[in-house]
């Protein structure tokens, strides 16, 4: 025990890593936060909507103090087709009081989080790539970065979706492609006033669009458009099994979105600030059933596969924060008791299962299965548009009641009424 330099080493200065490090420093432990980017946030990219209520537990006044972009008060869910779109447009002032979700740009947010860590006494080490865990008799005792070894009583792996540390520990096997999706995103600069006028927003209000269908050329996944203060975050998320099967290129699908009739007018005149991509985990609930610990090791956030796509909401950052809080609680207890065994680490699991993270992962356990339906990405959009076309297109044929219009739209669609009923029922139960 003589050369133990730190109580805790946290690998990765994203949301999970920063929250865990901050909590443990606040509790009086010596903490090092290692980040491979030249600064916190340099390697991080997210779609951009953060359901941030959980952050108030860690940083009171988070929304006021942190560099957030806009408060989401309007959510648009859109089924897009080649020449039409059917959109549910939900605007509600209650979403701003209290603030429920905000848009963020990670280069700014994560560097702020790392600053908070530093102020709380965390030693932040940017520009260092951790290569592997140090193991002694099955106990994780630190990390190796190049020729340097850093010893710690507890290691928290917050090293993102590709987590090489979780792989080394045998926690994350090679993922099947249906569990993964690639996000390709552009950040597009537009003047503040143009954004507010174009999206009918006032002040710091923001809108989040979730789109499926032709916007991804029918590939399973979806597209998103989020308003930042003076830019838009716009991109596609493509499930890897379907992307590979489609034979299409990820960047061309992204280009198709930019030129899509539902999107092109919204980004007109914009200037590209940044183009990036990021891997995400789709089968969150299944992934989270795996173990997340080894003696001396806890895996949090994306590294643990903690994401939730319910079709309507796409979450990851809030689960990252929630898992970090749970891990920090368990690590604090382990450090105080001196018990760093598997049993002590598993307190993290109990804390996680008892939190909103565990509850929501259980609630949405069937969502990934629902989202596998090709019906959703290829046939549902045209059908919805056909029904509405039948309602609004007054071609001088005698009008019919909605039920007749719908029945003939279903009849000319490749989808049967029974399939639709099953999809609807499954949506109500899974989402």
């Amino acid at each position, binding site marked *: 025990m003589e050369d133990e330099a730190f109580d805790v080493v946290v690998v990765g200065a994203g949301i999970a890593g920063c929250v865990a490090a901050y909590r443990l420093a606040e509790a009086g432990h010596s903490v090092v936060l290692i980040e491979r980017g030249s600064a916190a*946030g340099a*390697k*991080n990219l997210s779609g951009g909507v953060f359901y941030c209520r959980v952050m108030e537990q860690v940083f009171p006044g988070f929304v006021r103090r942190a560099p957030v972009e806009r408060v989401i008060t309007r959510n648009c869910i859109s089924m897009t087709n080649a020449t039409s779109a059917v959109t549910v447009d939900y605007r509600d002032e209650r979403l701003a009081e209290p603030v429920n979700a905000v848009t963020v740009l990670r280069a700014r947010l994560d560097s702020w989080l790392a600053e908070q860590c530093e102020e709380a006494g965390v030693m932040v080490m940017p520009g260092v790539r951790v290569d592997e865990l140090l193991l002694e008799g099955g106990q994780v005792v630190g990390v190796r970065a190049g020729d340097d070894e850093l010893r710690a009583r507890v290691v928290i792996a917050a090293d993102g979706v590709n987590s090489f540390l979780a792989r080394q520990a045998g926690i994350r096997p090679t993922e099947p492609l249906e569990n*993964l999706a*690639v996000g390709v995103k552009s950040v597009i600069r537009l003047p503040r006033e143009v954004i507010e006028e174009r999206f009918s927003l006032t002040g710091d209000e923001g809108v989040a669009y979730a789109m499926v269908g032709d916007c991804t050329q029918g590939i399973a996944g979806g597209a998103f458009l989020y308003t930042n203060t003076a830019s838009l975050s716009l991109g596609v998320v493509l499930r890897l099994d379907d992307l590979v099967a489609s034979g299409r290129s990820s960047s061309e699908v992204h280009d198709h979105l930019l030129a899509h009739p539902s999107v092109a007018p919204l980004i007109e005149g914009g200037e590209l600030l940044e*183009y990036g*991509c990021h*891997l995400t985990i789709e089968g969150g609930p299944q992934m989270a059933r795996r173990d997340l610990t080894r003696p001396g090791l806890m895996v949090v956030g994306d590294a643990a596969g903690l994401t939730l796509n319910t079709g309507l909401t796409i979450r990851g950052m809030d689960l990252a924060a929630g898992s970090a809080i749970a891990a920090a609680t368990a690590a604090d207890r382990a450090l105080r008791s001196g018990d760093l065994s598997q049993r002590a680490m598993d307190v993290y699991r109990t804390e996680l299962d008892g939190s909103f993270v565990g509850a929501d992962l259980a609630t949405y356990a069937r969502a990934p299965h629902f989202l596998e339906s090709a019906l959703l990405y290829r046939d549902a959009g045209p059908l919805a548009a056909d029904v509405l076309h039948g309602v609004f297109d007054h071609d001088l044929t005698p009008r019919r009641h909605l039920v007749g219009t719908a029945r003939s739209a279903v009849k000319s669609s490749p989808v049967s009424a029974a399939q639709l009923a099953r999809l609807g029922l499954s949506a109500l139960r899974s989402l």
Partner: protein
Amino acid sequence: MPLLGSVPERLAANHYDVDEEESHIEVDQDAARRTQAGPLLERVCAARVYTSQPDGSVLVQAAACLECGTCLAVAPPGVLRWHYPRGGFGIAFREG
């Protein structure tokens, strides 16, 4: 012409700290030819890091890499040796 320019033009707007001494991506060209992985890698990579050659080998432009890990996830076993660039090198997002 795509709305926001070609992919190489878009990447040029990004900030990279390029590691001139060490590439973080290596392709086993024999395995690539055997598994015909080239066209697949070329398609899935949003940064167009990979270019499939007529002889089945794969050209790599590691400096353009956005470090997402998609190529590693889809590549047949044995084709890629891929890890993150050395600390401080590679893409540095300014927006994210």
